[in-house]
């Protein structure tokens, strides 16, 4: 039998994502890819994969998977969540692990990923990756276009996800120490391209005000609740292209930050664009989290991008042997509250 992971329950919205499929936006094809590419890269690093290998992107509530391979190595990077490994599907209790680690699993093991409690995404990488044909150079799932990933859609119960490797490389497990996944106090933006469609007072409100991530946010766009923005030149423009991090403001005055699955073009004015270095942190924010903006120059943005690349380079040095026994983590995990902080956003920056 071919090596695979069987999906017992899919979680809220679990998709396969890599670093996206740029180069096809002129054909109407969104870039897609991981909302938080930093965590994706780190998850891959923990299992020895190339940084852009496709992994599971888990949103809010994780899946339960059964190992149908001789043995596999898996890693979990992003939000904090309880990772429980059970000896079989009928077992009621198992061993608890933390995220930011790799673990080793054998045929028949069940891994149950709980609710995410401080961020919106968690990446689950498997050593060797999934045996899935890329579409236009990427295995990222673009659900609306039924493109890529596993059958162009989110996982459902019963899916059998083929793996490249039937066995894991023999070595000890690792953990990631010191990866900073906190959010900035203010997300840096470059004003425009259509900031002249807004009144002076709306621009002031946008930069001084505070927003919260609204319900209805998804991989396409993050809806913001907060100060209402008024247009001075109407809210329809002749459709033009939409950059990652574009903040468009439709007629209702509520900004939407466009993310990985954003449509390639759109007809609402865009007040500002989040800089590329701050997009991974933005992609992690759960519903209810606080969002504020500050205007920076392109030079400052480029400097920040350079720093982000240096931070990515440093991930390799953060990988250390997982010394303590799993039971230690389990007891620590039992002491903390696993449920709170998911939707109230209070603990998101901790």
């Amino acid at each position, binding site marked *: 039998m071919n090596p695979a992971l069987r999906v017992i329950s899919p979680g809220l919205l679990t998709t396969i994502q890599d670093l996206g499929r740029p180069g096809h936006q002129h054909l109407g094809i969104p870039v897609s890819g991981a909302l938080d590419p930093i965590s994706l890269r780190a998850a891959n690093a923990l299992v020895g994969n190339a940084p852009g290998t496709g992994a599971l992107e888990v949103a809010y509530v994780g899946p339960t998977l059964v190992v149908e391979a001789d043995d596999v190595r898996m890693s979990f990077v992003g939000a904090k969540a309880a990772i429980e490994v059970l000896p079989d599907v009928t077992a009621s209790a198992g061993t608890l692990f933390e995220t930011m680690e790799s673990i080793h699993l054998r045929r028949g093991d069940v891994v149950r990923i709980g609710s995410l409690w401080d961020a919106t995404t968690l990446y689950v990488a498997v050593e060797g990756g999934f045996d899935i044909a890329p579409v236009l150079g990427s295995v990222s799932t673009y659900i609306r276009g039924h493109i890529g990933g596993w059958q162009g859609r989110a996982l459902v119960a019963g899916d059998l996800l083929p793996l490249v490797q039937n066995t894991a490389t023999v070595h000890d497990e690792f953990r990631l120490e010191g990866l900073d996944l906190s959010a900035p106090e203010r997300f840096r933006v470059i004003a425009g391209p259509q900031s002249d469609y807004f009144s002076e007072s709306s621009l002031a409100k946008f930069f001084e005000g505070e927003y919260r991530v609204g319900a209805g946010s998804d991989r396409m766009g993050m809806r913001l609740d907060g100060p209402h923005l008024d247009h001075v030149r109407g809210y329809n423009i002749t459709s033009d292209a939409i950059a990652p991090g574009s903040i468009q403001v439709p007629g209702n005055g509520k900004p939407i930050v466009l993310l990985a699955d954003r449509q390639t*073009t759109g007809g609402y004015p865009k007040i500002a664009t989040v800089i590329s270095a701050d997009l991974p942190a933005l992609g992690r924010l759960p519903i209810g989290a606080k969002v504020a903006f500050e205007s920076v120059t*392109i030079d400052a943005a480029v400097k920040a991008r350079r720093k982000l690349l240096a931070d990515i380079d440093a991930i390799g040095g953060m990988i250390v042997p997982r010394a303590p026994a799993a039971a230690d983590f389990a007891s620590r995990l039992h002491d903390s509250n696993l449920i709170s902080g998911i939707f109230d956003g209070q603990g998101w920056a901790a």
Partner: protein
Amino acid sequence: MPEYKILPAGDTALVVEFGEGIDRRLSRLVLALDQCLSEAKIQGKIDGVVETVPTFRSLMVYYDPLVLSAASLTSCIDELVKGLRSTEQAGRVWRLPVCYDERLAPDLAEVATRTNLSPAQVIERHSAVTYHVYMLGFLPGQAYMGDVPAELNLPRRKTPRLKIPAGSLAIAMTMTCIFPLESPCGWHLIGRSPIPLWDGRPGAGALLAPGDQVNFAPVSLREYEDLLAKVAAGTLQVAPHERAKEVGAAA
């Protein structure tokens, strides 16, 4: 030299905007600049351009700011625009079968009523035009084609439909589209095309490209169903023509 503005869209993209409205002159400038940039890239004259997205009146240029600074890209674009000529239509010419049968055209009667035309006149006016593909967007392979004759121009429906079938032929304002995938839609549905504008299989992709010209060939419901069956069986070859006014979409 054409008038234009260069606007920042974050630190990894610039918008080169030639105007605000929809007209073929602006569109041709956008496509000509796109062509020039792509040639400059191939000739190794510019490094760091990641991809470009032509739209009605502007070209989005994605770049890597660690390879190419915004200032260098701007002066490169300035140079290219200086030498830019709005060329004649250079795209391919297509003749796509569409079926306007009322069973596939839920809004045809309403469009006729609102434009004081008969359904037959709506069909005649809509299919008499050689359309220009302004851009692709919204869905994979979805081409925005214009210009719909003025007498057929209607705003979008007040209440968008949550789901329309793939292949739906629709109009709104000056644009007409064939929706490549099932999707929500606020446009008026006046027919259906059996030709898939998007094919997700490896090696396939989008049928149309910005700058292409499209004529619609009205077919009967029976012909539509025959063509649909051939598409499903993979036996229909859809190819563009060298010149306009030839027979299209031959089996």
